[in-house]
């Protein structure tokens, strides 16, 4: 099952590097198929061209990728997002529904067409209705003929890790954002997968060095990953080359990627287990019988036993904050705009639990945000038009942006920014509270960069990036449950530049999908084209829970008091009345 890309890609990439940039085309017909990857339960999964697991997208730096998507699901709209790609100049190909495009309705087609100038390990997945955990997720590998590490390994192997649910996301989400789940307890996965299966043997030749491209494609669970008897040497995280750094165990949140070098032993005496272990701290209740681990083996000799993994005493993963990018990009010292995001979880007056940035939970606008930019002319720089529930943040061209995220929640959250890799300039320990500039330690001179980063429980992170990529970029928690409960902010980066790039250049199939899906494409977040400041009719979150007494509470209390006093009055009247000795 191991996808040994080099076997079939090496010739292609050699060919490509000879002729320069090529176009890689994929025709994806998305439909429901059945699969039983964990051997526990057969369930419907979203397959491509009638198959599941879905194929990896593989290209070489500089290539044009064209993905023709046809939605044959029959009951759900869809979309594809190419996680980690900057989409420079092609923000309309980024994929999140109601942000940069309309949903692809049942029976419709949509073409993603963009070039990739960034090598590395990425993945692609649906960015609609939280549906990628139903199976619509796969690796996206961009090869690099100029990789600084290319001489360090002989072969590369893609390993995807993920949690796995037996229920459909549509059903699970309906129960998650619901009065029946006031604490916002996330559904706990039934099992976990590696390369969409379990107990995965990987043939290893003695003495060779392998590049393992590891991707956490899960919906929720972070994974501890370790290889028994072998040390990992991290060379890339989220598409950013790093100085090679040794690690015995890594912690990979949902949506993070790590490329690690593993040098095989010189003998074939034994096979070695490797383990992905779901971080059970994330789970509200760990159900009886849940196996948090998924196992594979480095098989040196297929005639020998594959040993069961050994128990470990404690999880002591490598801290990715210590990584140094290979290009040594220096810290952005000067910050032009600081965006403070205070996140929390709370209940609204429908009884369900929601997630908030600065007390606002994300609710999708009526018009995809990109189309609001394109249809509002100079008003596009006015944040008001993007609605009251989109957590919009306007970024000016080429300014250095700092995101200070304070996690006022006792959970771990992997935050992901579309369109950029950011410098992780500070990350607190657990329970550190809000970020305090004056008390902050020295920032690293060459901070680690990536596109998905963990913030610890009740801790904080500080991220910096340069707004050099006009587009609409979501910043959100990559736990799919929290996407559903609104833990999303919308970065609107250089809207006037977006207009210059894309006005009149949106392919017609994008508009066709909006028409088919009956989604308006002009005006503010409420679809109002006349008065852009008038947001009447926009989608809004449920109201806040009443604090204390409302009118009805006061009326009820007054009524109850009056009833009680009246009642006691009558008791007094009866009780003090003389008892007649005899009746007339």
């Amino acid at each position, binding site marked *: 099952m191991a996808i040994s890309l080099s076997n079939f890609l090496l010739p292609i990439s050699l060919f490509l590097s000879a002729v320069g940039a090529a176009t890689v085309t994929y025709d994806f017909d998305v439909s429901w198929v059945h699969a039983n990857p964990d051997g526990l339960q057969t369930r419907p999964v979203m397959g491509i061209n009638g198959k599941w697991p879905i194929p990896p997208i593989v290209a070489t730096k500089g290539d044009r990728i064209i993905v023709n998507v046809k939605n044959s699901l029959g009951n759900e709209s869809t979309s594809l997002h190419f996680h980690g790609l900057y989409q420079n100049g092609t923000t309309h190909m980024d994929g999140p529904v109601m942000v940069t495009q309309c949903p692809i309705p049942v029976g419709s087609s949509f073409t993603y067409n963009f070039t990739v100038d960034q090598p590395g390990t990425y993945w692609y997945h649906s960015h609609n209705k939280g549906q990628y955990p139903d199976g619509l997720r796969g690796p996206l590998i961009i090869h690099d003929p100029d990789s600084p590490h290319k001489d360090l390994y002989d072969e590369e192997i893609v390993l995807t890790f993920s949690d796995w649910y037996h229920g459909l996301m549509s059903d699970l989400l309906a129960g998650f954002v619901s009065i029946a789940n006031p604490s916002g*307890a996330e559904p706990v996965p039934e099992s976990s997968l590696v390369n969409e299966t379990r107990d995965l043997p990987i043939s290893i030749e003695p003495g060779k060095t392998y590049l393992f491209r590891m991707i956490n494609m899960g919906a929720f669970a972070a994974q501890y990953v370790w290889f028994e008897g072998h040390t990992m040497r991290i060379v890339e995280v989220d598409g950013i080359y790093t100085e090679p750094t040794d690690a015995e165990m890594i912690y990979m949140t949902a949506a993070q990627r790590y490329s690690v070098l593993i040098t095989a032993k010189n003998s074939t005496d034994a096979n070695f287990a490797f383990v992905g272990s779901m971080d059970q701290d994330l789970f509200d209740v760990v159900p009886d019988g849940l196996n948090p681990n998924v196992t594979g083996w480095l098989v040196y000799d297929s005639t020998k036993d594959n040993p069961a993994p050994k128990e470990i005493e404690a999880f002591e993963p490598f801290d990715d904050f210590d990584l140094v990018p290979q290009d040594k990009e220096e810290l952005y010292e000067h910050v032009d705009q600081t965006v403070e995001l205070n996140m929390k979880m709370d*209940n609204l007056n429908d009884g369900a639990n929601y997630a908030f940035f600065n007390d606002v939970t994300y609710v999708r606008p009526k018009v995809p945000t990109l189309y609001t930019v394109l249809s509002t002319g100079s008003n596009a720089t006015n944040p008001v038009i993007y609605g009251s529930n989109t957590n919009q943040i306007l970024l000016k061209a080429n300014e250095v942006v700092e995101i200070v995220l304070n996690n006022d929640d006792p959970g771990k959250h992997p935050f992901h920014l579309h369109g950029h890799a950011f410098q992780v300039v500070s990350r607190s320990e657990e329970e550190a509270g809000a970020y305090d500039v004056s008390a902050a330690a020295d920032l690293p001179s060459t901070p680690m960069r990536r596109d998905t980063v963990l913030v610890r429980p009740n801790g904080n992170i500080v991220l910096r990036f340069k707004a050099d990529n006009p587009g609409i970029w979501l910043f959100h928690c990559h736990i799919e449950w929290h996407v559903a409960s609104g833990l999303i902010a919308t970065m609107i980066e250089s809207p006037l530049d977006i207009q210059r790039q894309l006005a009149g250049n949106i392919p017609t199939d994008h508009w066709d999908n909006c028409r088919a899906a009956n989604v308006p494409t002009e005006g503010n977040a409420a679809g109002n084209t006349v008065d852009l400041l008038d947001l009447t009719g926009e989608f809004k979150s449920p109201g806040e829970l*009443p604090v204390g007494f409302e009118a009805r509470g006061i009326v009820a209390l007054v009524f109850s008091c009056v009833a009680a006093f009246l009642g006691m009055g009558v008791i007094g009247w009866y009780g003090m009345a003389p008892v007649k000795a005899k009746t007339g």
Partner: protein
Amino acid sequence: MPNVFAVPVFFICFRECLETSIIVSVLLAFLKQTLGPEHDVAIRKKLTRQVYLGILSGLLICLLICAGIIASFYTAGKNAFEAAEHIWEGVFGILASLIITVMGAALLRVSKLQDKWRLKITKVLEKRDDGGVAGEKLGWSVKCKRWAEKYAMFILPFVTVLREGIEAVLFIAGVGLGLPATSFPLAVICGLAAGALVGYLIYKGGNHASLQLFLVVSTCFLYLVAAGLFSKGVWNLEQDAYVRLAGEGAVEAGTGPGSYDIRNSVWHVNCCSPDSTTASGWGIFNSLFGWQNSATYGSVISYNVYWLVVILGFLVLGFKEREGRWPLLKGKSGDDRAGGDDGRSNSEESESGMAHGVMGKEDGERQGGAKVREVRGM
């Protein structure tokens, strides 16, 4: 405070003890009157001893039953109870509320109670006089009967104490399900002491006007407690449905968001919970007035409906006592509602009225009062 003094428990003990002491006092007064100085002192002493013996043995058995219930609750029942805590509390709360309501009315007619018991005792003693003379061959049942008659002064207080005591134990068990064990002893002792004190005052025939006032006030509190229990009982049942829906999350939420069903909420403040162990003053508020930091339509409506029924009930009782007939039955003329009476001034009549209730009043047969008394279900 609710951790050391359970108000409903106090009222229940007070009420049951008062009733017992009234009956006992009637007995003692009766003995004093019928077996006055002219009678045999030895017989009187013997009978008086029987009364006290009856009280003590009744009390003893009560305590045994009480201990048994507590023991079984804390050994076997605790888990079963906790699994469906809200249902138990809800059902027991509503039941206790209904029973207190029915009992409460009788408390206001203590004098009638006295009359009734006097009648009862007289009957028992009269029977003894009838059968006591001809003592020949007797059947087993007749022997039993005669034994019962001979020891009537023992059996009456014994049965009374036993009955009231078991009643109290059951009520306390019902009301106190959700209360901490530490809140019982003081409340029980105070309740018993207050009940005995009032009973003694009645026996001594003290100031009946102020006694009546005292009874009215304490009954008002009793009904406040009952209204709160009723409302809380309904709330408990609703909360049970919500907890079943929302699971652990609802429990984890404490008093905060998610701890209650917003769809039925009339008001909710994230504090001041009567169940809270820190903000304890609200527990008294809850015991006395049925305060809830989270009110639902069910709990508010049931509270008001409870009072409405109580008000109507007392108006009907009052009407019946004054007019000698039930409202709406064979109405003679225009005034068809008991409510029409409330303009009448009671304060003047109450002084003289009390005199009717004084001990020693002999005329026990009153058709009017009989129906009212049956409310007690004796």
